[in-house]
Structures are given as C-alpha cells and as structure tokens.
C-alpha cells in the first residue's frame, strides 16, 4: 500500500497533543452540562484523527471503511434501544400510586 508522507503524521501528532491540552484545560472551566459534551466531542475528534490518518481510513477502500463503522452502528443500536428502556421506565406509572 502506498504510504502517506511522514509529514502528515507529524502534523497529526501535533494536532492530537494540542487537542489533549485543550480538553484538559477546558475541563477546569465550569461549563455545566457542556463539560461532558465538550470532552466527548474532543475525544471523538482525536479518535477520528487517529483513524483517518494513522489507520489510513482516509485512503482506504470503502470495504474497510464500512467495517470500521459497522461496530459503531451496532453499538448505537445497543445503546439506543436499551436506553429507550431506561429513559421511559420512569414515565411508566409508578407501581404504587398514592392513596
């Protein structure tokens, strides 16, 4: 397989470390509920960078890309449908109702 230039790797690495510093810094700032969202988003960005550049998904065949994404899809189903249970359990009528 043809290899991307080393420079792309170094740039990615710098970006990754920059994101690391950013997320660490932001975690010290009070953002309320946003904190969790921000750190998750930055995590996802880092993961994406690693996957696209280091793992070469950017130039991989569609086949590989499909398999790379398939797991996320299956996880989405697992989280989504079991989440559906947890999210609606509270709204089902309480087993006891007040006298």
């Amino acid at each position: 397989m043809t290899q991307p230039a080393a420079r792309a790797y170094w740039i990615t690495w710098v970006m990754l470390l920059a994101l690391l510093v950013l997320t660490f810094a932001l975690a010290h700032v009070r953002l309320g509920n946003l904190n969790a969202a921000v750190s998750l988003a930055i995590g996802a960005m880092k993961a994406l960078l690693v996957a696209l550049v280091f793992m070469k998904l950017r130039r991989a065949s569609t086949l590989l890309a499909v398999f790379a994404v398939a797991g996320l899809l299956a996880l989405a189903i697992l989280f989504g449908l079991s989440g559906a249970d947890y999210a609606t359990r509270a709204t089902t009528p309480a087993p006891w109702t007040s006298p």
Partner: protein
Amino acid sequence: IAWSTIPLAIFVGIFVWGARVYATLYQPADGAMKVFVVGKQWMWRVEHANGRREIDELHLPVDEPVRIVIATEDVIHSFYIPAFRVKQDAVPGRYTALTVTPTRVGTYELHCSEYCGTDHARMGGHVIVMPKDEFAQWLDQGAPEGGMAAHGKETFERLGCSGCHDPRATVHAPDLAGLYGRVVHLQDGRSVTADEAYIRDAILLPRKDVVAGYEPIMPSYQGQATEGDLLELIAYLKVVAPGDAMGQRTGTQSP
C-alpha cells in the same frame, strides 16, 4: 412485494391489539385496592392493606380491580396466575405491579415462573377469589388493629428507628411525621418530594440524599430491613400525620 406487504399488514394489526391489552395490564386503575406480594426463596408472602398476612395464598374479592405490588427479598421471581393469564417478574431493588380484576369465584393455581433456584418448582400456592362480602369478612379476621401501618410501627421500633426519629430522642434526626408528600430540602441544595422511592432510598441508602441541616449519621438498613419491612415502614410513614408523636399513635386509615 404483495407477499411481503400482506404479512406486514397482518403483523402490524396483531401488534396493535397485543400492545393495547398489555398497556392496560400495567396501568394503575384508580381506586383499585392494593395487595403487596413479596417473593422469597421459595415462597410468596402476601400482605393486605389492612395488615392481614398470608403465605403462598392470595385471597381476592371478585369483580374488583386489584393492584398487586410485587417485590423480592433475593433473586428474580415471577408471580404467575395461569388462570388469569398474567405474570410479572419480581425484580430485586424495585417494585413492579399488575392490575387485575378477577371475574369468577374459585381457587386458582399460583406459580413462580422465573427460575430462582432449588425449589423453584415448589414455589407457589393458590389464589382464592371470593364473593365480596365473604372477602370482607375474611379480611377482617386476623388483621391487626391499625392495619398494615401497625406492622410498620412495630418494625419502626424493632429496627431502632424510633431511637433517633422519636422527637423525644436525643439524637438530632428529622421528625418523620407527615413526611410523605412533603418537599424535602437536601444538603446539596436539591429539593425532592418525599415519595415511596425517596423513603425507600432514605432507609437503604441514607447517604444518597442527606437532609439539609443534619449529619449523615443514619446507618444503612440494607440487608437488615427486608422487603416486607420496607413495605410496612413506608405504609407507616405514610399515615403518621404532623403532630402525631412518633412511636405512640398510628393512623387508622389504610395507606
């Protein structure tokens, strides 16, 4: 295509019908009488709202909606009355419930249908559906004065709750009279309404919601208070009105 749309249409039809019956099963009927059932390896303990207890038997009046509240001491069990076509799992750490209306007088089988260990096959008994007046009579026999809450009061003393929560006690603990339904302010600034789940957690997990102005000294009753005890304690706490001295008087109405 027709071959796949036709079954699809049939399927959706069946689904809708099934779902509606299912939903009514779990909807609490207003004003339904309540029965509390606790599964335990390997028996069913029943307590009626007025405090009458039975084991492996459940007496019900005919033609009256009943809400059966189900809990378990240990593993998952499932409360199954084949003749009524109903069952519901008893899940540790929670209450589940069913609403049924028996329509015919008679004696029916009662089973445990979720595998729960050695004597799973022997865990069960009978459901006895009686005419209303007979049932009322039956219910009064052996019911303690003051109903289920009276059991709760005994438990309240037996487990030593009154040692702290009695207003005369020297320990600084909140007065529980009239607690039920009140808004409680917590140490961490949140406010919650004291419902069954809150009271249950307060007893089992006192550290979870600490009341503002108090030290977190209350011990956890996890493992000490059984599910039956909890049901009774909650029933008791629901009826003590403000002004009632804890540990002295109990309400007379049922929860």
